[in-house]
């Protein structure tokens, strides 16, 4: 064990934390909107809406994230019309390709969590709300959504941890976040164990903090832990 090397590289790897957190939070927030849209499409009852949503989720869950990233970063840029489109300033940047891919991925996975949450809302609540004269939109925002959040939160906590882990892949398209910096140091110093311990501890710390926050939120919302 080279403790001095671990100490030195700790300060270098820490510089990657902002980028990791930035990418994770931007794509998580964008991903929630996508997830709600996909979940609503799936339970809409119309085949025209639910089938595309079903195949979208199937496609994303059935293929590796790395492949999705390559597809967005290298695959799309092959076409002239994309390079001339207004999206090109975004699609030529590895940063935005990473965010787009992670957003799509978490959107697909969380849509299943949200769908489960919405389906768990008892029909009688919806009926009661209708009887009280609330509109459909108001019922959704005031009744369905809060109950869905309560139902979905424990599973969503897991999804957040998976997102932190998944964000490491953007290092492959040259972004220098935690894993990217760690990899660079490993290939320079050839001390894989030491660097792994440092970078791994940082990831564990981030995920531990997420678990604490999710637990706090669960307690606030009165979710009882399954024992």
């Amino acid at each position: 064990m080279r403790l001095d090397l671990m100490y030195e590289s700790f300060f270098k790897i820490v510089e990657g934390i902002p980028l990791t957190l930035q990418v994770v939070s931007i794509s998580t927030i964008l991903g929630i909107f996508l997830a709600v849209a996909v979940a609503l499409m799936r339970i809409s009852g119309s085949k025209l809406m639910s089938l595309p949503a079903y195949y979208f989720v199937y496609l994303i869950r059935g293929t590796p994230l790395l492949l999705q990233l390559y597809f967005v970063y290298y695959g799309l840029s092959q076409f002239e019309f994309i390079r001339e489109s207004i999206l090109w300033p975004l699609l030529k940047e590895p940063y935005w390709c990473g965010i787009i891919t992670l957003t799509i991925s978490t959107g697909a996975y969380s849509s299943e969590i949200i769908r489960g949450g919405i389906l768990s809302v008892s029909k009688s609540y919806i009926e009661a709300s209708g009887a009280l004269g609330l509109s459909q939109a108001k019922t959704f925002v005031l009744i369905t959504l809060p109950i869905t959040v309560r139902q979905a939160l424990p599973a969503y906590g897991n999804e957040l941890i998976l997102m932190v882990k998944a964000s490491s892949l953007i290092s492959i398209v040259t972004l220098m976040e935690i894993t990217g910096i760690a990899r660079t140091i490993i290939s320079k110093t050839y001390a894989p164990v030491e660097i792994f311990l440092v970078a791994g501890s940082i990831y564990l710390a981030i995920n531990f903090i997420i678990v604490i926050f999710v637990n706090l939120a669960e307690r606030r919302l009165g979710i009882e832990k399954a024992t």
Partner: protein
Amino acid sequence: MFDVFALGPTGWGDEMLMGAVMTILVSSSSLLLGITIGIVFAACKLSNFFILRAIAEVYTTIIRGIPELLVIYLLFFGGSSAVMYLAKIFGYIGYIELNAFTIGTIAVGAISGAYSTEVIRGAVNSVPKGQFEVGKTLGLSGYSLYGKIIFPQVARIALPGIGNVWQITLKDTALISVTGLVEIMRQSRIAAGSTHEPFIFYTAAIILYLLITRLSNIFFDSAEKKYSKGYVSKEAL
């Protein structure tokens, strides 16, 4: 447009198929290693010894909290020297290099082992206690109790969970492409680079992964049906 997928030396069709075979091979061997690790650590988690339980807990927490890519880098850069270090203890001094397949199998196997541990532990816990007691009352122990009475029940309950672990494992093998193992991901990258047709080749890779997923779903569904014979299904209740 589809000439690029011609078989033989003129196209990439056969190379892509070989990539798919490699993906299936490395995923299967990782899953097997993972299940073996899973059985050992599930036994640790269920044991009465605090130390064993703590070791298993640390292992699953680390693997589930750290990016897969870091684990792969650790083994890719450190695997060979670790093996040489072990060999030195046993008196062998020389250069040993692990190939990409072995490193990939160990890395992805270690990852899928953590998930298998939880699946197997849950399955063992859901075998009714009475089964152990009856077995012991009948005078069975060791292999005849665990091998013939407990294991078949654990296997049946664990099967759907193992199916999920297989999906995770299959997708994780795409990360081994960074170590140079020529599976679907790596092969489509090579082909995309040499033909300048990344869109077509990454689409082909997506189709190959979805095909493997579809086929393995069919396999696990039929295996589940086969091993659930004689049990009342949940829907029937």
